[in-house]
């Protein structure tokens, strides 16, 4: 509660107020304590004095009581007139009965009681009354009664209250004067610090420093404040530096990125150029192969024809060995012609455009099997088709050639007594992706080793001897691969060596 009341008062008034409250409170408390203590002691003194007086009277009145001499007893009591606070007094005999009574002049309203009460002092309203025994030889022979008013105590209380009030007033004024002067010791450094803080926050100038005036808590506060300002200043400059640094780094990075981008573009351009170059050189290679094979065919035909003419017309002129060599020449030239034809065919595949259409592969397979019917029957090969093939967009002629080559190969490389070829498809390679179906041609032939999975597609590559499994040019699978690639498809094989081979391919050519 006092916190809230004092919170918004200026410090200098707060200090003065606190000092005044504390000094005032302390003064008031101590004064009250002193007054109360004094009154308490005064009461004790009063009781003691009254008891002493009663004892004196009792001592003086023993004979009067014993002899029941009222005159003498009254004389003893009459001496009390010298003490004006005693308003009433009495002496009782041991019977007990009132021997003599005394009342101060002008206080008739205080008659002593007719019979003595119990011994001891009793504070009544406005009075202190006392019964005290009259002893002679340690034996009680009567009682003294004294009644004193409290006027002395009241007068003392009034005096003390007035004194306390005066002291309170004077010391309060003195405290006010002193504290008004001394509060500056506390308030001035605080005010100065507060002004400094205000100017710092108004101007955002962290180089301002508060002035230190002492090493007390306020001095420590000033130190801490200055340290704080210093730290803020350091942080501020650090922040500024960091900001500049960051900007620089952003610029650097931007430049780097720009450079990277340029490099990447250049690389892409280069790649495109290379691609173009590659395409061109590929084309050149195709052209070259075509031209070379086409142009080579002409003289080769002549060599072949003339070697045949030579053998027919002048065969008798040669001996047996000569004729054999001439026949070898004829055979080799014939073979070379076949190879060149294959090469020509292959190079043509890269040159001509495809005629893409929706093709029912079932029809194509049926055509191929028809054309090979005699050969297949002779070889004892069974054709299996587990389910109808799909309709695929492709070049009919090329796909026919593709299937032809694969079926011929499958029939050829088979050493099993019961041969079969299965033609089918799996819906999609990537599940749920809607990719093109993969058509396969599977056989139970000799299979190939895994290390040869790639090399079988190379042109004129043969895994077996020239005359084994019916011979061949070694261009069949190369042509197959070329056809698949021209359709943007893929081709791969699966095989268990000695148990069979499966060739998969996809066709994804769009028009």
């Amino acid at each position: 509660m006092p916190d809230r009341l004092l919170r918004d008062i200026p410090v200098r008034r707060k200090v003065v107020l606190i000092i005044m409250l504390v000094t005032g409170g302390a003064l008031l408390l101590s004064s009250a304590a002193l007054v109360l203590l004094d009154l308490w002691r005064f009461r004790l003194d009063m009781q003691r004095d009254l008891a002493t007086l009663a004892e004196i009277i009792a001592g003086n009145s023993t004979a009067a009581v014993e002899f029941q001499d009222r005159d003498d007893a009254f004389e003893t009591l009459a001496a009390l007139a010298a003490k004006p606070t005693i308003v009433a007094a009495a002496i009782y005999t041991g019977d007990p009965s009132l021997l003599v009574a005394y009342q101060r002049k002008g206080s008739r309203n205080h008659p002593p009681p007719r019979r003595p009460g119990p011994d001891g002092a009793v504070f009544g309203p406005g009075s202190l009354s006392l019964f005290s025994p009259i002893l002679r030889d340690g034996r009680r022979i009567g009682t003294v009664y004294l009644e004193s008013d409290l006027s002395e105590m009241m007068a003392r209380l009034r005096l003390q209250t007035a004194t306390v009030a005066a002291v309170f007033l004077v010391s309060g004024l003195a405290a006010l004067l002193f504290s008004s002067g001394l509060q500056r010791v506390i308030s001035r450094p605080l005010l100065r610090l507060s002004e400094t803080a205000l100017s710092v926050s108004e101007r955002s100038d962290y180089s301002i420093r508060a002035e230190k005036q002492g090493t007390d808590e306020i001095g420590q506060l000033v130190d801490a404040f200055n340290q704080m300002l210093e730290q803020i200043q350091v942080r501020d400059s650090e922040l500024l530096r960091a900001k500049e640094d960051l900007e620089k780094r952003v610029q650097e990075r931007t430049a780097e990125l720009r450079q990277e981008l340029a490099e990447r573009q250049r690389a892409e351009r280069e790649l495109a150029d290379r691609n173009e170059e590659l395409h061109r050189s590929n084309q050149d290679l195709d052209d070259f192969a075509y031209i070379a094979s086409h142009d080579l065919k002409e003289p080769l035909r002549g060599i072949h024809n003339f070697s045949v003419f030579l053998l027919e017309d002048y065969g008798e002129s040669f001996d047996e060995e000569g004729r054999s060599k001439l026949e070898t020449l004829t055979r080799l030239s014939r073979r070379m012609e076949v190879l060149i034809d294959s090469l020509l065919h292959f190079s043509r595949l890269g040159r001509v455009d495809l005629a893409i259409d929706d093709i029912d592969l079932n029809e194509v397979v049926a055509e191929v099997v028809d054309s090979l019917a005699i050969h297949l029957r002779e070889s004892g090969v069974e054709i299996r088709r587990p389910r109808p093939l799909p309709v695929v967009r492709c070049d009919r002629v090329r796909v026919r050639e593709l299937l032809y080559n694969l079926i011929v190969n499958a029939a050829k490389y088979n050493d099993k007594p019961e041969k079969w070829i299965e033609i089918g498809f799996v819906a999609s390679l990537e599940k749920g992706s809607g990719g093109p179906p993969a058509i396969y041609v599977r056989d139970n032939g000799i299979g190939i080793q895994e290390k040869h999975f790639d090399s079988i597609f190379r042109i004129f590559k043969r895994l077996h001897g020239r005359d084994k499994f019916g011979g061949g040019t070694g261009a069949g699978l190369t042509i197959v691969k070329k056809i698949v690639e021209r359709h943007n498809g893929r081709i791969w094989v699966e095989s268990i060596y000695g148990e069979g081979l499966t060739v998969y391919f996809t066709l994804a050519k769009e028009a």
Partner: protein
Amino acid sequence: MVLLKPLLKRLPKGRSVRRLGLAFCLAFCLAGGLPPGWAAAAEPPADLAAEIKAALLFNFAKFVEWPAEAFPDLSAPMTFCVYGEDSVGAGLEALIRGETLSGRRLAVRRLRDLQQVRECHLLFVSAAEKGRVSETLAALRDARVLTVGEGADFLGRGGMIRLFLEQNRMRFDINLDAAEKSGLKISSKLLRLAQAVNPQRRGG
């Protein structure tokens, strides 16, 4: 006086009641005097006077200090002696029963002759023995005995306290010189109550 006697007689003879009556009478007779109706009477009735005298004797003993050598030892009783007028002796006997003074037991002795007078501490010589006062006091010269008597010349003859009736009140005078000569200390309180102190000097 005639009226008062049957009043006392009619009261039960119990000790406390008698004391009560005595106290009443002491207060009455000493302080206030007799009521107006009794004013015609010349003196109090004999019994009452004896009782008052006995009470006075007892009270005198309370305010007089004997020197230590007055007693053979610490447990020796204080002895009240009455010479003549047996009723005072009877009154005293009634008064001191069970009482002590300064821790001493009290005793009453009725003297028939003066042989044992020096063993007393307080001696009352009644007016009836007026004739033997001088003899008695002579026997007690320098003895530590408080002498109480009656008669105008009791003090003049060397007695210490003289009882007399004045305006229906029992009063006493004190011969302080004689008391001091015998080594007795009479309390100032008692002196204050006396009608006159050392009146024998004037008369002497």
